[in-house]
């Protein structure tokens, strides 16, 4: 949207028209999508219920591999969440214009992905009904949680992340909801938008404080991008399991999170753009920029993989060496090579410029990367646990239908929020796009931003 080509300039009105058209009553396709998501949520809920009634043994955990599909999903979804904040906050601070058209989508993805990720620590608890014991609240037992545990850091990091990203998301939405309010036709929508826009008018005073506050939010969210996934990575790095205990984990996880998150944004943006005709708002240039980001993070991730192997070799540590022999050549080598293909090999196609703007290729590639990043977490978690210090205790994971059901449920849960969101709230930022358009003026020289 950074072109100022006057003849084909997008106008303020067109932005409002295009975006608010998305909120018109949904067609059958939308209902099918929503029902599919709800069905998936149902599968997940049924699986979880079964697991709660019957025991954690329903999932595929075994003695050495006490964390499995759930923590894999947790890290995956937290990772997905990250690029949302990256695009909305970090790129905001860097004034990257290509962010504007996709940031709302990315941010919604963040919030919903954190909501999804947040479920997994609960699901994976042996006694989920005592989850609140992780909260530091005064209780009759006079017990407190262990602030030295990486899991408690996780509790703080993820809940902070959810709060801040949700706030950031909602604050960003307010002016756009006001725009939707001003055009709402049905009473339901009028009431909905009137309430959710909190009476926003876009007055000079509103904007003044808004821009200031928004900057602070962005400033707070930016370190969160780094810290949350670092803290998640410490769940592993703080332990002593060979394959987990590595100082490279925080940057490696953050890069991986951005990598997977950008891929997920592409996965979501492409169908959305197609379905609502947003080609003029989400342009090929945007995809090109995101592709470059993918290429860069893929490089970082690949480098991190290589570093892990190098460190295992260089440390001359028996246990590390065995672990990193096991990954490519052990029982679960398929997951390893799948990860290498998806995360290191496949993205290299983006060196070709035409591929970066080829929507079909990008869509397939983004799915491949999503799979690859899921496998990466799978490798880190399961493979490391399968072969640690004492050979007599080595073991295997028993993948179960409950694992699969809950994973499906997670996608359904995420999809459900996404589907509802795009029909009820502006999924593309109206104000922000307008901000990068030239301000209507009689005389030139009135820059818009």
């Amino acid at each position, binding site marked *: 949207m950074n072109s100022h080509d006057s003849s084909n300039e997008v106008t303020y009105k067109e932005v409002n028209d295009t975006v608010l058209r998305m909120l018109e009553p949904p067609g059958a396709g939308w209902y099918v999508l929503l029902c599919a998501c709800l069905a998936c949520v149902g599968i997940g809920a049924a699986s979880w219920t079964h697991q709660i009634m*019957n*025991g*954690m*043994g329903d999932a*595929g*955990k*075994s*003695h*050495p*591999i*006490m*964390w499995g599909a759930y923590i894999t999903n947790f890290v995956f979804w937290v990772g997905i969440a990250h690029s949302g904040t990256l695009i909305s906050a970090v790129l905001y601070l860097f004034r990257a214009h290509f962010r504007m058209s996709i940031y709302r989508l990315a941010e919604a993805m963040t919030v919903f992905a954190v909501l999804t990720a947040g479920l997994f*620590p609960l699901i*994976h*608890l*042996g*006694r*989920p009904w*005592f*989850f609140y*014991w*992780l909260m530091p609240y005064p209780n009759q037992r006079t*017990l*407190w*949680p*262990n602030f*030295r*545990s*990486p*899991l*408690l850091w996780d*509790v703080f990091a993820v809940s902070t992340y959810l709060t801040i990203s949700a706030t950031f998301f909602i604050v960003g939405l307010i002016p756009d909801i006001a725009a939707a309010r001003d055009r709402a036709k049905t009473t339901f929508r009028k009431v909905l938008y009137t309430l959710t826009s909190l009476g926003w008018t876009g007055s000079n005073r509103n904007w003044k404080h808004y821009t200031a506050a928004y900057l602070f939010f962005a400033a707070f969210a930016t370190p969160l991008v780094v810290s949350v996934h670092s803290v998640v990575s410490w*769940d592993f790095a*703080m*332990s*002593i*399991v060979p394959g987990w205990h590595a100082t490279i984990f925080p940057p490696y996880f953050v890069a991986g999170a951005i990598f997977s998150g950008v891929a997920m944004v592409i996965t979501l943006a492409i169908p959305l753009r197609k379905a609502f005709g947003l080609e003029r708002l989400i342009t090929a240039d945007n995809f090109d920029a995101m592709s470059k980001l993918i290429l860069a993070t893929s490089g970082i991730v690949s480098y991190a993989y290589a570093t892990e192997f190098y460190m295992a070799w260089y440390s001359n*540590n*028996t*246990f590390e060496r*065995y672990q990193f022999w096991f990954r490519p050549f052990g029982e679960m080598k398929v997951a390893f090579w799948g990860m290498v293909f998806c995360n290191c090999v496949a993205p290299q196609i983006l060196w070709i410029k035409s591929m970066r703007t080829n929507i079909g290729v990008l869509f397939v590639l983004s799915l491949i990367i999503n799979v690859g990043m899921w496998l990466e977490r799978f490798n880190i978690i399961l493979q490391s*646990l399968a072969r*640690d*210090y*004492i*050979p*007599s*205790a*080595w*073991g*295997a994971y*028993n993948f179960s239908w409950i694992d699969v059901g809950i994973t499906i449920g997670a996608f359904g849960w995420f999809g459900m929020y996404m589907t509802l969101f795009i029909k009820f709230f502006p999924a593309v930022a109206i104000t922000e796009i307008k901000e990068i358009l030239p301000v209507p003026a009689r005389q030139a020289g009135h820059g818009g931003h």
Partner: protein
Amino acid sequence: MSEKDSELVTIGKSASNGISRRKFLQILGASSAAGVAGCARDQAQKVFPFVRGEEDQIPGVSVWYRSTCRECSAGCGIQVRTREGRAVKIEGNPEHPVNHGGLCGLGQAALQALYDPDRVRQPLAREGGSNLEPQFKPISWDEAYARVAAALKANNKKVLITGEETGALDELAQSFSKAFGAEKISFDALQPVALAKASEQVYGSYGIPRYDFEKAQVIVNFGADFLETFVSPCEYARGWAKSRKSGNPAKFIHVEPRLSLTGANADLWLNAKPGSEASVAWALVKFLLEAGRGNSLRDEVRQSLSSLLRDVSIDAAAEESGISADKILRAGHELKSADASLVLAGGTAAATANPMSLQVATATLNLILGNVGKTVLVGSMRKPQTSLARFSTAIASMKKGEVGLVMMHGANPQFNLPAELGFQYALAQVRAGDPKGKPGLIVSFSSSLDESAMLADIILPSHHSLESWGDSRPYAGVHGLVQPVMTPVFDTRAFGDMLIKLAAMAGQSSVAGGAEDFLGYLKASWKKVHAASGSSADFQRFWLESVERGGYFVAEEGDSSKLSTSTDAYKPVKAMAKVGSGFGDQDLVLYPYASVKTFDGRAANRPWLQELPDPITSYVWDAWAEMHPATAAQRGIAEGDVVQVRNKNGELSLAVHISDYVHRDVVAVPLGQGHQAYGRFAKTVGYGNASAMLNLSANAEAIAYVGAAVDVVRGRGRSSLVKTQGSDSQHGREIARTAFVQAGAAHGEEHGAGHAGHHEPKQMYVQREHPIYEWGLAVDLSACTGCGACVVACYAENNIAVVGKEICSQGREMSWLRIDRYFEGPAEELQVSFQPMMCQHCHNAPCEPVCPVFATYHNEEGLNAMAYNRCVGTRYCSNNCTYKVRRFNFFEVDVPEPVSWQFNPDVTKRSMGVMEKCTFCLQRINEAKDHAKDEGRIVRDGEVQPACVQGCPTQALVFGNMKDPESKVSRWAESHRAYKILDHHINTQPAVSYLERVKHKL
């Protein structure tokens, strides 16, 4: 003391109250609990007081009773812990001369036979159903007695089959049989009768000598699994371990067709063709005679031996057995140069069709080497009464329809006898009746519904040995007493009481010599012991002291005095020296082996033992066929394939385990699985009974376990054998370490303080101070045989859930203590390491800081504490546990009544979703501290013994306060052999020290 007596008598007498009495007992914590974190499902709880107070029964305080283990004929002393009238734990009696406090897994699991949910709960009579699947209906005791008494009065042949009994019960059974003209047959499948007979031929008296493993410098063993099931494993293991723990352990050479636990503990394990051991033994005889040993033999013996052995040579033996001649020579040289050595043969490997050759050869070797009187004690021998020849004769007469009454107790011949013998058919003939058509009666006094009891017409359930009086006299000088430790669980009677009652009803009241019940009879019998003891105390006092001690034990008498007579008897004859396998050119031979898991099948209904991983294969809840890779490859069979192992007598359908440690010519199967009756746990395991397929050799004194030719055919499908061991190899990680004794250099002092072998790493944090106690454990790997007794003890003490095969297959077994077993090296130079692995209670525990809710933390006494009810189940601790000793409750496990009565009320039962692990038997520490506090002192060294430490037959573990430099554990930990697992890698600072295994390189 007198109160105690009256109390005991009350218990004994109150048998008639049966099951109702237990209801009077208070229901305390464990039995009434709804589950750990008290989900809101508990209804109003009731509290039942005792009706009558008993002086030594304080609710919440355990009462210990001493008794004798009757699970096998070894006669180990036990002490049973009872709480609120229920037996909750069995331990070895430290004062007993046989086992000195240790107890094997089978003995500890006797509780599960006591509380077997499938026990016979009242008298049953057969009513309808087919011969194979009979229906039983409950009848009254009066009716049952009346029917048996009527049959006793009838004038025809009668047979009384009992297990291997010694002492008063045997006397009573003899007297009973005599009175009714019944043939009394003792039967115990694992009794080494051939060994006893060989002793008679060589040493001059029938019986199994006692072996002193401690004194032997060289042990050459042909198949005797003396660390597992052979005669008296606890006794032998203890002696063997004493030698191992010393700086200069015995050199141990073991010859057998399949690696057994005993073989795995050998310095040199030789894989011999089954049945060829005799030629090796005779070759050794010749070698030693030629080398100038055996000068003590009479000249004529030497001459006849050398003429007999003219054709024997080491090369020929090597060729026949498949063992290289060097190794045989090596064994010969070791024997030759040793002052004291020990040669023995036994186990199923030695139970061939012609077992005498091997047994005579080993006895001759002992004679030549001068071991008799030194390591082979013939003065106090066990005298097995089992005789297959007599049993065969009785069966023959049963088949003819001559027998009108068959009574069985304490034996399961239907399961243990070869099918060819036709025991089932014989019983059918008894039931069909004599030629006149009068039907006979088959009576079982079994307490469980085993295969033999299923064939009975009437079952009069007898007490478990923990519910009845009795005694055991395994060998001269040991008089063990059996006393009831609790009121009977079900409506059963003591076997002795039943015999006395039946005799009286059948008009032979003189059988018991005037005693009204078996306790009276026992006391009468013990009056003789009293008289022989020369004790100055009166009988009552002597009796009470014996009850308290668990028996009356005479100091061991000298054996050498009796040696002189023995050599005179020895007349080597050709038949003895007959060598050769005798199997001809058969392709594959069935090799069933007894193991600590099942023995001959009697242990199959004990979930603890079924869940105990097999010490060699580490399979649980299963039977399998072990085959050599070459043999399997020949037949196109791969690991895990289901095969049919069959011959004309039967068929086994088993999964194949391919192992380098089994001879090419055998297919080895564990003995004792494949029950068709004997309770729900036994019935789930294995497909087919290996005993039934065995050959019948004419007039054999014992079952020939080796020699049955079988075909192995690949069956359909694959079966999942469930293995608890991850990797069989240590991958060079030095986890279980072995040191080899340097030739010529004695290896230092035992557990001495001294060499600072390990350096202390620098610590980042200030290490915690432990003000009074710092509990620590040390394990001497030299003494650990890998038998798993500690594992069973741990299950029993800590209410550990038995989860079954399927959950085990998911890697979710719950054992807090496991035995890690590693194989290193090729089969010819095999080194096996066993390593008990429990929570290491690390001072820098990786599991602790990762718990978000402090469910696990470090306490002042150096314990890695685990508060179950605080656990939310993140399982992070288990991931971070370097030793992988934490167990997670993946499911809630239901325990059927009355198995649940065994639960230790002092230990919390863990619920679903909670992590658990070894606590160093915290409840015992607390109990000891409680006592100490009462007395205003701190806990003394040795006062606390966790279940594993207490139960270890070889005393390979010690526990104590590391703060006390004089404590045994501190001294062990200071030993130059001591090390801590992985400590030099990850600085976990475990509280458990291991002492390297010391072995010889042979």
